[in-house]
């Protein structure tokens, strides 16, 4: 157990900290590369939008902004105080919705993004792997080759465009799904059956976007992994021994190809998360993506900063959790 911790857990934990460290440092450096004075530009932009702010709130906003950009003191001091505020969980007030704290607004949007993202990622991963393995085991099956061609055709297309096409087809020309939102305008989220059903109906198209784009990658990955395995001696032996095909496929072939796919899942989380953000914008889904969109329109710098930091920590934690459950699937890691 101690060797396992030393050899496996501690390197993973260091990698987790490195990821957060690099991500946060990048978000620290970026505003400092900007050629214009962000504080004054921000205030000018807000004034230009016709916000009637009295002198006192301008002053307090200027203070908040200077503080938030961390522009007082030497770069090193700035960097240290930046981390200090982060560790206290203080991301400052939202400038678009002054003075609601950024973390509160992100907290409200997070469940929508998270529930949709998790469901879609799991569905596309399971189906992609299943069909990928089936397609390499039954290479002559027509239906499977059609699925492969469709999956491969959708894969390279950006999330935004796939979402747009789905929206136009299934909400505009064939209106079977709602245009936007996570629930009808005017209703309040609650736990009644009716609400859950409409919630699910609203989630179909956004989830379908994520599933469709993700599916092809898992499919092709599984197919190429298993295409080597099916010619292995132990598979041929199992076949000649007359084992049932289902068992060969699940216990002999897929199980051995699953590990790289799990690693792949961890590696792809950041990309999928980015895709989910843009998909939400298209469907007006009230998650982090829509929050970002509004923040961009309102020049809400603190919100964008907060979203960037939250997403980095969120993705890093998800990857770390996947690393932690990895030994459950791979006995070699456990008995190393």
């Amino acid at each position, binding site marked *: 157990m101690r060797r396992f911790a030393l050899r496996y857990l501690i390197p993973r934990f260091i990698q987790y900290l490195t990821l957060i460290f690099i991500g946060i440092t990048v978000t620290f450096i*970026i505003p400092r590369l900007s050629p214009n004075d962000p504080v004054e530009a921000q205030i000018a932009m807000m004034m230009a939008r016709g916000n009637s702010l009295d002198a006192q709130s301008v002053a307090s906003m200027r203070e908040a902004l200077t503080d938030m950009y961390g522009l007082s003191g030497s770069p090193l001091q700035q960097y240290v105080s930046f981390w200090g505020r982060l560790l206290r969980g203080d991301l400052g007030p939202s400038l678009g919705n002054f003075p609601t704290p950024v973390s509160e607004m992100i907290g409200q949007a997070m469940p929508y993004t998270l529930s949709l993202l998790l469901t879609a990622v799991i569905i596309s991963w399971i189906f992609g792997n299943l069909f990928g393995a089936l397609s390499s085991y039954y290479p002559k099956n027509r239906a499977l080759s059609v699925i492969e061609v469709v999956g491969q055709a959708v*894969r390279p*297309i950006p999330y*935004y465009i796939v979402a747009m096409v789905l929206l136009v087809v299934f909400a*505009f020309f064939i209106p079977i799904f709602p245009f936007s939102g996570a629930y009808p305008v005017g209703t309040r989220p609650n736990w009644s059956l009716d609400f859950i059903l409409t919630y699910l109906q609203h989630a179909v198209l956004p989830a379908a976007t994520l599933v469709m784009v993700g599916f092809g990658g898992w499919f092709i990955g599984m197919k190429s992994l298993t295409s080597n395995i099916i010619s292995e001696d132990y598979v041929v032996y199992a076949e000649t021994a007359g084992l049932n095909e289902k068992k060969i496929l699940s216990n002999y072939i897929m199980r051995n190809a699953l590990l790289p796919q799990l690693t792949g899942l961890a590696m792809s989380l950041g990309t999928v998360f980015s895709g989910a*953000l843009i998909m939400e914008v298209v469907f007006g889904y009230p998650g982090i993506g829509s929050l970002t969109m509004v923040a961009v329109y309102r020049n809400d710098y603190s919100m964008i900063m907060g979203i*960037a930091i939250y997403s980095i920590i969120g993705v890093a934690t998800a990857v770390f959790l996947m690393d932690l459950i990895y030994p459950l699937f791979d006995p070699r890691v456990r008995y190393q």
Partner: protein
Amino acid sequence: MFKVLRDLLKFDGRFRIAFIFLVAVVMMIILSFVSPYDPAKSFVVAMDTPPSLEHIFGTDSRGQDIFWWLTFAVRNSLLMGVITAVISRAIAILIGLTAGYQGGWLDKVLMSVNDSFVVLPLLPILILLGFLLRDQMNLFLLGVILGLFGWPFDARLIRSQVLSLKERSFSRTAVYSGTSSFWITINEHLPFVLPIVFATTINNMLWSIGMEVTLSVLGLSDLTTPSIGTALYWANAHGALVAGVWWWIAAPTLVAIVLFLGLYLLFASINEYIDPRTRLRLIGG
């Protein structure tokens, strides 16, 4: 070169489709040089006319011919993709070769940074960057920025290649005959790595063009330059779907799909071609 092209056209269905799509894209790019309309000028043709013989993709609410405007958009998007690809390839080769050949603690540090960049959710960071540089942003700068973020996957790929090349006998011979490690990587290993670099270039361009679409749709790029992303941005900004001007959305979407599928299929087919084992399977060997 010509023979390779002929073989691929003959044996690979995917390459045939890629070829047709990319010829269409190249045609559009060539046509952009003889465009009768200046993409910077609006209200030069009638507004909101559906696709017809005169205006193949119709005209938009800004009085521009969508087809001719898109010829510029494709050219600019592709150019930006190339800029990104060149920069990120340079970084990927440098890091991949160094980490793979040197090994040891340098390799550990580089790969740890590399893995962090792979997993990092880039979009929020790019949005932050685009937001702060909004007034200075242009397609060239965007290409450079994407290039600085687009290398980690391929650096890892190159490293893994070098790790196996390092163990081959010719590398040993070179070491024993006193070649410096710099020349071994440049002369002996780089040629093996280049085909992979070439294949991943296309994939990288796909990624960067897709990112440009995403950022432009959010209004975070130079919106006056035609690109596939800004085409969609303007259509959205004018509420094209609500106003029933569906062709304004459909045309850039169609062009984007042709471009993406063309590049992707080319990538898939080249990827298979550079691996001799899969190449044999292709011609039924």
